[in-house]
């Protein structure tokens, strides 16, 4: 493996690691209002946080299992869709996470 490739892979791994936490925050922020997967993905993409469905749906399920999201099946446009929104616990945790992220962000800005 050439040093160029190795650096690229390293950067890619670190970028993904950095993105993973931010994605959870972005998904939780978007789900303060009820949405289904497809529109949620579009919302995130429009805001510069593209996410493929193979990452989004397992993440939604994980957050639901952890009790941070609630979901229900409903028909819309003649199709059954699963709508997600933050649960009460999810809202509390989201506020805490947001405060943590803002604090980290300002600390980082200070360091940088």
């Amino acid at each position: 493996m050439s040093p160029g490739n190795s650096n690229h892979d390293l950067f890619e791994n670190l970028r993904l690691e950095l993105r993973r936490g931010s994605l959870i925050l972005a998904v939780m922020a978007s789900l303060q209002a009820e949405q289904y997967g497809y529109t949620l993905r579009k919302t995130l993409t429009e805001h510069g946080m593209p996410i493929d469905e193979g990452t989004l749906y397992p993440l939604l399920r994980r957050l639901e299992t952890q009790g941070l999201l609630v979901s229900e099946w409903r028909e819309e446009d003649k199709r059954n869709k699963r709508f997600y929104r933050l649960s009460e616990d999810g809202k509390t945790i989201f506020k805490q996470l947001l405060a943590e992220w803002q604090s980290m962000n300002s600390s980082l800005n200070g360091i940088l």
Partner: protein
Amino acid sequence: MDILDSYLRAVKRCLPRAQSDDIIRELSDELRSQLDEQQAALGRPLSDEELMAFFKKHGDPMTVGRRYRQDHRSLSLGWELIGPELFPMYLILLSFNLALTIAAVVVVSLMVHLPIKPDTFLVPVLAQIICLTVVFTILNLIRRKFPQPWYYPPAELAPLLPISRWYSLVGLAMWATVAIWWLAVPHFPQLILGSGAAHLKLAPTWHRFYVPMLLLLLASVSQRVVSLVYPTWTWVIPVVRAIINGAAVPILYGLMFKSQTLVVPAEGIQNTPQNQQLVEKFNDLIRWGILGPWLWIWAGISAMVYAWYCVPHLRRLIRRVRGQALSAVS
């Protein structure tokens, strides 16, 4: 939509069972929404090739299914031998093989009145574990080397996958070698009789089966040539192989079970007990070894499997004919 349903079925097989229906419902809605959006943008339905590209981009069913699994179990010895995508299938196959092996060892031991001891199971069980682990390690290596794989296409997509030239070339080399061997057998009986050719010759019954077998071998070679030259003619493989293997079943049946003698003493060889024993040995060797019932069973099962593979091709053909008829009417 056949292709979407087929893709979802393939994904479902790789999902945790308790949630699979729910996940598939949701994934189905997501993919249908994406497809609708693409079709709306193009102003027409997607072609088969565009659908294929769509599913390729989405990922192979095994990888998609793995993302929903919480238990990312794998087999590692310092470095990864079998990754989390393949591990569930490895466990299922290993359990099945071990159960079958243990049952077979017990049955055989009882039949030949051997005592059943733990040692009796050791070698067959170890052999199963080692062989299966090696096979899955190789599969895992291939998956890691080619991180965008498409190894498990749903059956409905198979007609869209061009046949790899490498695959056709290997098959051509193999079947051409077998055909040449078969062609040479009448002139050089030692190719089948080995050192026994000095005392033995092939019985007249061979002549009844020789030409049909040769024709089947030549058909196999021709199929590989056609696949090599026209890799997009994907229907050739299932159709031709279903016919060849189907035809081989009665031929092999006649050769194996209806022919008394396949080998007789050569001219000038005395009918001594020793030579009679040699004749019997070679007849058994050919009947139960070289062309044994396993070959007959394999031909029958292959014929059925390839006949099943013909179904998506047939479905596509019917769709195309109907489409042409409809466009002719309009």
